[in-house]
């Protein structure tokens, strides 16, 4: 029996974000002239660390292993939500620390950190959302600050344009999604996922079209959040335009948030066994996964701009993660389904570190004002070897080479897809993964192989940014052997969804 106090305790990760946001409000209100933003960043980072610690402790204690429903089932705290909150906490902490140097010269730092923590709050709520209403609200809570964050460099055309596109596509998507929710409500009479699931049998017989269109539209909204094709259009532009730490935050945490809610909504709210006759969303996700990873990787292959390449690669990774849903064909039995879904979670988990790290490295280079194209990275390895080793770790881990946890998680994902009876999906992923090696290694090539066109003249070695990049690198590397800490959690969390 979970007491009231314990319930609040279970929400402590989200609360950590909220408290951090409040603290930032207070600080900004009373000490608006904090020159270098160190305190603000520290508060945000502490909020993130507190959130990840809390979720870590909760995970290890196992109190939420079976899932605890709160507020009449509107929220649920279980392994999956805690695991993802752990991701959000880590990414928030990393991004906050890195931002100290990145936005040192810019005004309105408090707003920046505030928006970050608020978005993180929204994400942690998304991870726990157990009703379509909460899903929508939390989605907006995490999206609206993100729009503003992208536009943070408000005198920079790219930043503003990115924000505009992000916002417009986002608004369209949220419109589509909420309309979809309304249709599902029309068909089932409920917004609570468990009730929706139990109402499916009768209602889907009466209004198959309404339910189907509704679900399809909900999937569209989720695809926007995860930057999956065809709702991905905002992503390259927004990531490229946004301040690099924000791009890191969006491409890692925000994407993970989209996935966690997608996992829960579809697996819990629309079990494929009962809804397959109306809308075979597994097939839908197979299409989306293939298209997403292919488009992402192919488009990434020809980019000239590292940041934009990373943006497309993050679309590609969304494609991989979608395998977690696309493989739930029920051909391999529940064990296999939990495996592939858990592998997808693990991949997002590792991705949170490696992708954040990669974007933070871009932030570092932007901080040095070296430029954004591959050529601008030429010879960087001689000037900043440590950071470049870290970047090498990130991109190779993203590519699925065994320098970091990305190797294991990606291959777990492919293995899971095979086990779930869709080996062809794994093959498509494999081909894409090999292609990705091509463009990722261009970064490595530029850094280590190419000589610089002219002396780079790096003088500053920003401590905080370095610390964030290195932390991300170390964690990425350690996750290779250390995935053992999380793999059981992920697979159990996945199994408990079914």
């Amino acid at each position: 029996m979970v007491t009231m106090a314990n319930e609040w305790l279970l929400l402590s990760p989200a609360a950590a974000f909220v408290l951090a946001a409040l603290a930032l409000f207070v600080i900004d209100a009373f000490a608006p002239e904090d020159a270098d933003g160190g305190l603000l960043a520290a508060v945000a980072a502490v909020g993130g660390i507190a959130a990840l610690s809390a979720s870590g402790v909760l995970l290890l204690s196992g109190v939420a292993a079976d899932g605890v429903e709160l507020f009449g089932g509107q929220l649920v705290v279980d392994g999956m939500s805690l695991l993802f909150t752990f991701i959000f906490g880590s990414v928030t902490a990393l991004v906050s620390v890195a931002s100290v140097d990145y936005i040192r010269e810019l005004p309105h730092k408090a707003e920046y950190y505030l928006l970050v923590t608020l978005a993180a709050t929204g994400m942690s709520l998304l991870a726990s959302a157990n009703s379509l209403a909460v899903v929508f609200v939390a989605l907006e809570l995490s999206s609206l600050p993100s729009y503003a964050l992208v536009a943070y460099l408000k005198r920079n055309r790219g930043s503003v344009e990115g924000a505009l596109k992000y916002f417009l596509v986002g608004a369209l998507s949220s419109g589509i999604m909420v309309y979809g929710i309304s249709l599902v409500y029309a068909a089932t009479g409920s917004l609570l996922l468990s009730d929706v699931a139990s109402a499916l049998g009768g209602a889907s017989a009466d209004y198959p079209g309404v339910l189907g269109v509704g679900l399809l539209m909900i999937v569209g909204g989720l695809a926007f959040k995860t930057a999956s094709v065809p709702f991905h259009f905002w992503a390259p532009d927004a990531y490229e335009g946004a301040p690099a730490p924000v791009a890191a935050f969006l491409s890692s945490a925000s994407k993970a948030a989209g996935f966690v809610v997608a996992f829960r909504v579809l697996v819990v709210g629309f079990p494929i066994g009962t809804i397959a006759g109306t809308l075979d969303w597994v097939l839908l996700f197979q299409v989306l996964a293939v298209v997403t990873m292919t488009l992402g990787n192919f488009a990434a292959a020809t980019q000239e701009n590292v940041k934009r390449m990373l943006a497309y690669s993050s679309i590609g990774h969304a494609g991989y993660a979608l395998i977690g849903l696309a493989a739930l064909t029920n051909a391999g039995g529940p064990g296999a389904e939990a495996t592939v879904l858990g592998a997808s979670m693990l991949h997002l988990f590792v991705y949170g570190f490696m992708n954040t790290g990669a974007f933070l490295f871009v932030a570092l280079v932007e901080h040095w004002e070296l430029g954004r194209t591959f050529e601008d990275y030429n010879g960087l390895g001689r000037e900043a070897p440590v950071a470049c080793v870290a970047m090498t770790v990130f991109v190779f881990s993203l590519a699925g080479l065994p320098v970091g946890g990305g190797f294991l998680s990606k291959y777990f994902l492919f293995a899971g897809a095979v086990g779930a009876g869709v080996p062809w999906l794994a093959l498509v992923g494999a081909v894409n993964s090999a292609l990705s090696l091509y463009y990722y290694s261009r970064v490595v090539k530029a850094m280590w192989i190419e000589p610089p066109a002219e002396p780079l003249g790096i003088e500053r070695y920003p401590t905080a940014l370095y610390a964030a990049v290195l932390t991300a690198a170390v964690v990425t590397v350690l996750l290779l052997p250390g995935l053992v800490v999380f793999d059981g959690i992920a697979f159990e969390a996945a199994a408990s969804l079914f």
Partner: protein
Amino acid sequence: MLIEALVVSCLLGAAIVFFTPDRYAPKLAFGLSVPPLVLSLYAYVAFDGSGNALLGGEIAYETFAEWLQLGPYAVNYHVGLDGISLPLVVLSTVLTTLSILSAWTPIDDRQSEFYGLVLLLEGSLIGVFAALDFLLWFVFWEAVLIPMYLLIGVWGGPRRKYAAIKFFVYTNIASLVMFVGFFALIFGLGDAVSSTGMPAIAEALRAGQLGYLGTPTVGVPPDTLAIAAFLAMFVGFAVKVPVVPFHTWLPDAHVEAPTPASVLLAGVLLKMGTYALLRFNFTMLPEQAATLAVPIAAIAVISIIYGALLALAQQDLKRVVAYSSVSSMGYVILGLVAYTVYGVGGATFQMVAHGLISGLLFMTVGVFYNATHTRMIGDMSGLASKMPATATVFVAGAFGYMGLPLMAGFMAELFVFIGAFESTVLPAAPVFTAIAMFGIVIVAGYLLWAMQRSLFGPFELETDYELGRAPVHDIAPIVTLVVLIVALGVAPDLIFEMIRDATLDVVEFGFGGGS
């Protein structure tokens, strides 16, 4: 703990060298490559394993620890050596030490990074040969790519970037295909195995416990699954080997790679492919291998003949040697598909022999290149009069490559030929064998031709470099290799005994082994 000590000593060495100033890096790297070498030699001397590591043999230096959980399957840390892997580990350490020596002259830029990567590569290679759990093995398997990519890319020739990326992506995509194929097998076994451990999988597969991938209604039936997985794995490894028609990355990589990297690439990296073929395809799926014996043997024969013809057409000495590797690796495939003790054992022996011989040739070509700065056969002639010791070694190496008796290559090829000839698995085995054996004529043709053009005749050189005798640290490794090659040729049982011991179980699968 010996294997851990081996790998860690390599990785530690890599880390130390990486942070050493360039000035001290070469000698330090050589010094740091000695402990792994000594350890591996100790492992060889004290080897007490018997049988095949995957098929219930006594595994030497075994370590087991629990690691990950992939859904229903445990992924463990499991390493150990048997008669097949131990010679390859020793090969790796020997070649690494020697190639570090051979790098002293040509590598004059970013030395500490170079030697660090070489040691890193060594550690990964040992891991590949020692790992007995699939995922652990795969970690090392893929890890090998990174140092090699950088070695080619940073220190290579003019087209190094193209060659490096081609190597990188091509072999990576193959690994991925293989990975998918193998996991299809694991999941096809269902509850018959509870981990990704290679011994368990091998025994379950040989015991015929493969079931449907998925459910019987919508899944893939066991027969189809086995064949499909076999093909996926075969293609995956064939790229690494490389086998025609998946070989085109090899000449590019070899030509552009710096000498020490070529040595390791040809000497050890190619063996990863054949080693994996032996460990996975031919140990785990013997029936499928038997079913596909004819096409596989055809590919092997084509690789041998076609690779040799390509070598014949080359003007660049290094390309000659590179293509000849394609040819030599064909013998390995032929030996494997024969499913006889001599065939499979000979294939393994050929891995070691070719490792030494091709390493020798690449090193020697490197020594010439250091002196002349050209590798084009047409640009030089009469080098033997200026560099007698090197030329002697080159001649020795070339004859080793041609399969001169009492050198390792001959014994290897003879084993393979005997094994293939007597194969009962392969239809028309004598015909395949006879065609394959014609490779020894072509190989003699192009190597003799290359030697005649480059070493002999009046001295001429179209470069501005002064020629002198090669320094001792260039000569020492190649002479060592010659000694090793002859030693293995005169006393093949130095390693063949343990190899044979480990292959007996592989070939004993209903179709008899050997005569």
